[in-house]
């Protein structure tokens, strides 16, 4: 008997309970999964259409059709993990603050950030993960190439970093509802910011593009979320020179800094929290 809970065990119980809950409304679960896949298929159709007219997104950027599909599948993988693990929880967190139910979370003998971040897992969002992996397999088959174990290992590491950055951003936005009272525009804000991460960073160039790229790389590092892992999958875009490795190295740092910042904001929010009830 230790005096602190086993976090892994608690997480697995959360995952199991959420799965049981999802399976209770099975038809709803299937419809949810299908609708998110339908949404993504439409996005895919849009890019297929674009590549009818152009060989590449950005002149000499290296993002040809199938290379871009690898980018798109990475977007799907990262976003579906974030949605499955944290989206529902971040949404409920704002609600916990507004209604004062956060009291119950604070009383439990477990790290509060852990508890409010992972309580409920949305399994249906993983439909997009499967779709993303399928798309990735298709792109690799078309490119007739498979990355080595080191590239795959690095890819997985940077997918985790990407998830960490997005999670930190989402939690910080959710925690800000302590100050704002309610946070209706959370999703809007979230959507508008992450929208910048969905494209290869090469497209942000020129007089207005360069500052924008700089801002979303170093201040709010959402451009690292997809770009860094996706490049490990594309042979021609993998880091080759020492200078190419600077960005992945920075991404590691950015992920850790984001997590630290999110925890700091979260703690600040808890200090300001006044129970709404009782």
């Amino acid at each position: 008997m230790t005096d602190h809970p086993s976090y892994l065990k608690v997480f697995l119980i959360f995952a199991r309970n959420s799965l049981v809950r999802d399976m209770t409304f099975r038809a709803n679960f299937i419809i949810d999964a299908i609708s998110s896949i339908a949404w993504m298929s439409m996005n895919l159709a849009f890019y297929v259409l674009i590549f009818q007219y152009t060989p590449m997104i950005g002149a000499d950027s290296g993002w040809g059709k199938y290379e871009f599909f690898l980018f798109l599948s990475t977007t799907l993988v990262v976003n579906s993990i974030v949605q499955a693990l944290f989206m529902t929880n971040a949404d409920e967190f704002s609600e916990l603050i507004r209604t004062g139910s956060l009291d119950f979370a604070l009383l439990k003998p477990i790290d509060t950030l852990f508890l409010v971040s992972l309580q409920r897992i949305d399994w249906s969002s993983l439909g997009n993960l499967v779709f993303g992996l399928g798309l990735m397999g298709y792109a690799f088959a078309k490119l007739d190439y498979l990355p080595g174990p080191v590239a795959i290992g690095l890819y997985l590491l940077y997918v985790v970093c990407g998830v960490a950055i997005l999670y930190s951003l989402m939690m910080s936005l959710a925690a800000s509802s302590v100050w704002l009272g309610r946070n209706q525009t959370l999703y809007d804000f979230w959507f508008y910011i992450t929208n910048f991460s969905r494209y290869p960073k090469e497209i942000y160039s020129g007089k207005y593009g360069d500052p924008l790229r700089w801002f979303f790389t170093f201040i709010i590092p959402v451009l690292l979320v997809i770009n860094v892992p996706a490049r490990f999958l594309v042979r021609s875009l993998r880091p080759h020179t020492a200078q190419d490795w600077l960005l992945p190295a920075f991404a590691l740092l950015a992920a850790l800094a984001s997590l630290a910042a999110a925890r700091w904001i979260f703690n600040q929010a808890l200090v300001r929290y006044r129970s709404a009830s009782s």
Partner: protein
Amino acid sequence: MLARATTWWTILRISIEERLVYRGDFALGTLMRFLPIVTQIFLWAAVFSAIGTRAGGAKIAGYTFPDFIAYYLLTMISRAFSSMPGLATGIARDIRDGTVKKYLIQPIDMLGFLLLYRTAHKLVYYLVAAVPFALVFYLCRGFFPGWPDAMTLAAFVASLVMSFFLGFFLEATLGMIGFWFLEVSSLLFVYMLFNFFCSGHMFPIDMLPGIWGTLVKLIPLQYLAYFPSAVFLGKITGAELAWGLAMQFGWLLLLIAASRAAFRFGVRRYSGFGG
């Protein structure tokens, strides 16, 4: 007749006042809605850079790079007219939870009431959104080929006004499917998906190749975003323009009839309980 006009005027006035309460939040939200356009500009600039010089005559489906940006901005205007957020779900919910009873008991027509309510919301929306819209269009004026001639402008305005009514009656009809199936949310999701893709909100539908382009131009969704914008940019002219406007009007009449019929037959099936 006069009593009726007074009633309708009162409904319109109350709805306008209700809407003006949140004007600050509203103007900011409108400005934020232009943010995705920023990424669209960069995406299309990158696409065009790969096929030739951006400034030069390179075209995709008849659209130059500035045309694309102007097109996306114009669809924001057409969507401001044709989109009816929550209309279909609202009607379906009223049917499910029984609120629809009030339209059956009170001497007021449901479709007329909802149309006035929406008109009021839209009017306030244009009033408040005019400033952010003007600002964005002014900043992006370089992407536009200049003002079109008076005839084109008149056609543009006509098709915008019709797109408002078309959007309203289309969504209202869909919402009234709730008289037959109590849960219509997944059906509406599919509609939203189709709407996003086929209305031209995502890209100019001229880009669709072969049979797909023909099919998408057969259904009325193109009038909700694509058609007014293409008219403004001078992509549709002459006989094609006249025919397009006539078709839009035809669809509008058809959908008014469909929504009336759906209401009439729906109410026959409907049974309300309790108070």
